[in-house]
């Protein structure tokens, strides 16, 4: 382990690491754009200049390997002056459109300018004009003028997604990012280029102009899109969730996440949600509060068990809920109702082992491993054929379904619903309204439940790695978690004072939407 000195303090860093890594490890701030821990070293922004004793010229930290006894300095006047000038070089052709730039507020140039900027610009020439609003593909828009040509996106498509869509065209200050051979940037990882873009050159079509980033809060979470369980940051405000970005976890997702996972925020937002409980059947629905619906459903279950015995009810679980919820529901079902009829609904068994080689898996449930473990622990492992036989034999009078949170990944929704409808009663937990359920032919209880963003819990990913995540925000306060449903089913009252009630905090100019007409 070489011992080095940074700004007069001694550090010990691993053999073979670069000066840049040493700085990051030591937690010392150093300016950089083109260096990204997940990509190769390009060394083109020239911003990470450091002074190393014994070397006549300043060196870039990202491509210099540490040696024992190196004395490094990035706070001397020479380095400061250099960084100031190089930042100025970055800025001389950068347009001043921060007001309409989506990156404003989380922009590398803004941050660095505040820290290292030369506040007296001497550039008096006309700026180089390049193309704006270039459509790169279905997800990403490019603004070439804002681009500082760090080539992070190009390296990403070359090294990580290996799709090679992007390249730098032309030379000198006429260089522009573009798509090679007209092949659009259309892969499942394209939005990572937006994340790694240090400026606002690449913007996401999905998020573009929808919010200023300073109105958003962020919270850590786990992506529910597939069984990889990428660590994510959810950006939200009182109006709901706006976007999902990856969070670094080298053991799960590295620095990246897929575009499919990024769109999982959409069904969480209030306009896609089931807001109240619904009881009834096709064309005759009665709306009531979720808790009342659950209470009614619980009484119904008890009635059936008392009348026909514990084997007349069945529980179907999908891999979309947290380990805690499975546990509570199974305790109620197995210990409370003494039923052994618990089944695991696998939505696409033929694709369950698919893997695209990077992150995205064919198993589109975040917690398949979790539900399997929960069933094993409870000692119930019902076979799907048994359920089919029992249903068609009319032995089962009521089916409780912990339905999918994200219905779009359950292609067999209609088929399975028809199968469960053979029972007289159907109790279905769902976060979003479903056209299939609306057409339900038997007595159905639709109970709105909370999504992954609205509850704390644990998902077990494909590796068997248990990942805890906290509550992000509350979008439908009245919706229940499965644990709460189990509590209501077993006849207890919820403590309404302890539940998260409304959306946290107040949004800027929130009141304008709330008061309405006078």
């Amino acid at each position, binding site marked *: 382990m070489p011992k080095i000195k940074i700004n007069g303090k001694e550090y010990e860093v691993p053999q073979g690491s670069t000066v840049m890594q040493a700085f990051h490890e030591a937690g010392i701030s150093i300016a950089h754009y083109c260096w990204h821990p997940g990509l190769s070293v390009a060394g083109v922004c020239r911003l990470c200049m450091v002074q190393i004793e014994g070397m006549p010229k300043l060196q870039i930290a990202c491509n210099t390997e540490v040696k024992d006894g190196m004395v490094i300095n990035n706070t001397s006047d020479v380095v400061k002056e250099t960084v100031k000038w190089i930042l100025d070089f970055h800025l001389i052709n950068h347009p001043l459109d921060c007001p309409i730039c989506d990156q404003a507020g989380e922009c590398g140039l803004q941050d660095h300018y505040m820290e290292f900027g030369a506040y007296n610009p001497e550039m008096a020439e006309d700026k180089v004009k390049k193309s704006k609003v270039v459509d790169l593909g279905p997800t990403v828009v490019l603004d070439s003028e804002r681009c500082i040509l760090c080539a992070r996106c190009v390296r990403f498509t070359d090294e990580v997604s290996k799709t090679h869509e992007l390249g730098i065209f032309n*030379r000198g200050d006429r260089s522009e990012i573009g798509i090679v051979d007209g092949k659009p940037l259309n892969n499942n990882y394209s939005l990572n280029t937006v994340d790694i873009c240090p400026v606002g050159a690449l913007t996401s079509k999905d998020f573009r102009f929808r919010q200023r980033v300073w109105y958003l809060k962020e919270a850590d979470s786990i992506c529910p899109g597939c069984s990889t369980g990428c660590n994510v940051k959810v950006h939200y405000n009182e109006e709901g969730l706006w976007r999902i970005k990856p969070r670094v976890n080298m053991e799960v997702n590295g620095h990246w996440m897929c575009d499919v996972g990024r769109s999982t925020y959409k069904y969480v937002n209030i306009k896609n949600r089931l807001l109240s409980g619904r009881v009834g059947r096709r064309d005759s629905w009665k709306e009531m509060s979720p808790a009342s619906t659950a209470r009614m459903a619980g009484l119904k279950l008890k009635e059936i068990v008392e009348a026909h015995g514990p084997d007349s009810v069945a529980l179907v679980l999908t891999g979309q809920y947290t380990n805690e919820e499975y546990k509570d529901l199974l305790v109620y079902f197995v210990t409370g109702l003494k039923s052994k009829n618990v089944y695991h609904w696998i939505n696409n068994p033929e694709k369950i082992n698919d893997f695209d080689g990077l992150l995205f898996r064919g198993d589109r449930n975040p917690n398949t491993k979790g539900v399997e473990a929960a069933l094993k622990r409870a000692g119930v492992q019902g076979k799907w054929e048994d359920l089919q036989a029992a249903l068609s034999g009319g032995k089962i009078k009521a089916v409780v379904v912990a339905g999918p949170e994200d219905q779009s990944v359950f292609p067999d929704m209609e088929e399975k619903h028809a199968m469960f409808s053979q029972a007289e009663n159907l109790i279905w937990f769902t976060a979003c309204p479903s056209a299939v359920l609306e057409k339900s032919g038997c007595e159905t209880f639709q109970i709105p439940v909370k999504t992954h963003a609205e509850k704390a819990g644990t998902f077990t990913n494909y590796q068997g790695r248990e990942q805890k995540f906290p509550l992000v925000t509350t979008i439908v306060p009245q919706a229940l978690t499965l644990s709460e449903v189990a509590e209501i089913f077993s006849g207890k009252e919820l403590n309404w004072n302890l539940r998260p009630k409304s959306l946290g905090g107040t949004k800027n100019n929130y009141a304008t939407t709330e008061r309405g007409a006078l």
Partner: protein
Amino acid sequence: MQTKLLTEHYDKPEFQTLEGYKKYGGYSVLPKALKMDPKAIIEEVKASGLRGRGGAGFPTGTKWSFLPANGEPRYLLCNADEGEPGTFKDRLMMERAPHQLIEGMLISAFAIGSKKSYIYIRGEYNYPTECVRKAIDEAYKAGYLGKNILGSGFDHDMDVYSGAGAYICGEETGMISSLEGLKGQPKLKPPFPAVQGYLRKPTIVNNVETLAAVKYIIRDGAAAYRKYGTEKSPGTKLFSVSGNVMKPGNYEVPLGTPLKDIIFDLCGGLKPGRKLKAVIPGGSSAPVLTADEAMRATMDYECLAQMGSMLGSGAIIVIDDSNSMVDLLDVIMHFYHHESCGQCTPCREGTGWLSKIVHRIHHGRAEAKDLDLIKKVSEQMMGKTICALSDAAAMPAISFVTKFRDEFERHIERNPSRTQEEAHA
């Protein structure tokens, strides 16, 4: 007087062909070299003190000894991408004596143990490319290239690669990128080409003149080669003289020859009635010398370095008093702006900025403080980038503005278009 070592037979048209070349002693050194120990050849080249003729002047033997001693395939690349404005010596060498280059390359390749070499010729050089291609074909037929050359057991293949005319591909790593089929952009160092170059294998890149000179070092021995030139800059060098002289052209003289002699004796001096104003001694990227300095300068690496300039590729551009330095700098800056590859920020933005400022000065829309700005910008571009193009743009800018400041100031002051614009405003 010229000292014709490399260019001895350049005046004979048949020297271009294999037969003619052999008539004047061609391919006589190769058998001798093939019998030598490769290490001995490297030692000989080291002892001769031969320095790279492409521009940087790095000792060739030392460069060769950087190759790692493992069994990896290694490549020899001949840099014939002669892009430096003012230089045209490699072109002459490839047109007149392609076999001389091939022989020199074969000896060098044998010394470093390379089985494959490429000659990277700039895109505009159609005729030289043709000459070299033809010569390689002839050499293959005569058994000087291919398997088991002259029964020595040494295999070697040679290929010609025509560039697309980018100046930056004359930089060794830029050339390697271009050869690999990538965009011609210099690569980060380290790793240096000698460790990881072409196709990530050890690679040696040498200039045409350097490789050709190797033949003569082996022929006559290092001591004989050292007789030419000075102690630290031994050997002869081709100088491409252009500009306001009576007889521009390529001249081979020993290093250390006074610049005065080259301009006034060999090239016949300036046009009658003209006065020497400045000389650029090593291609457009070398800092300019004033007339006084040019009179004192000797053409070797040390003297020019001492004067703050450099020998570069040996392109002497003579400027007399009929030229405007502002005009000249505008052209040079435009060249570097156009040729910057756009990888590193200081160079990409700096060359454009400099070009715009100088253009503004040239067209009379400038103030005196812009001269200081040129200096400031140039200083910040120096030594901050992957390759030396940024320095190559900054050095002439600084030297022009410093050494001819009064001319620039006069230009700014009495410029007609400026007064016009003021009247307009």
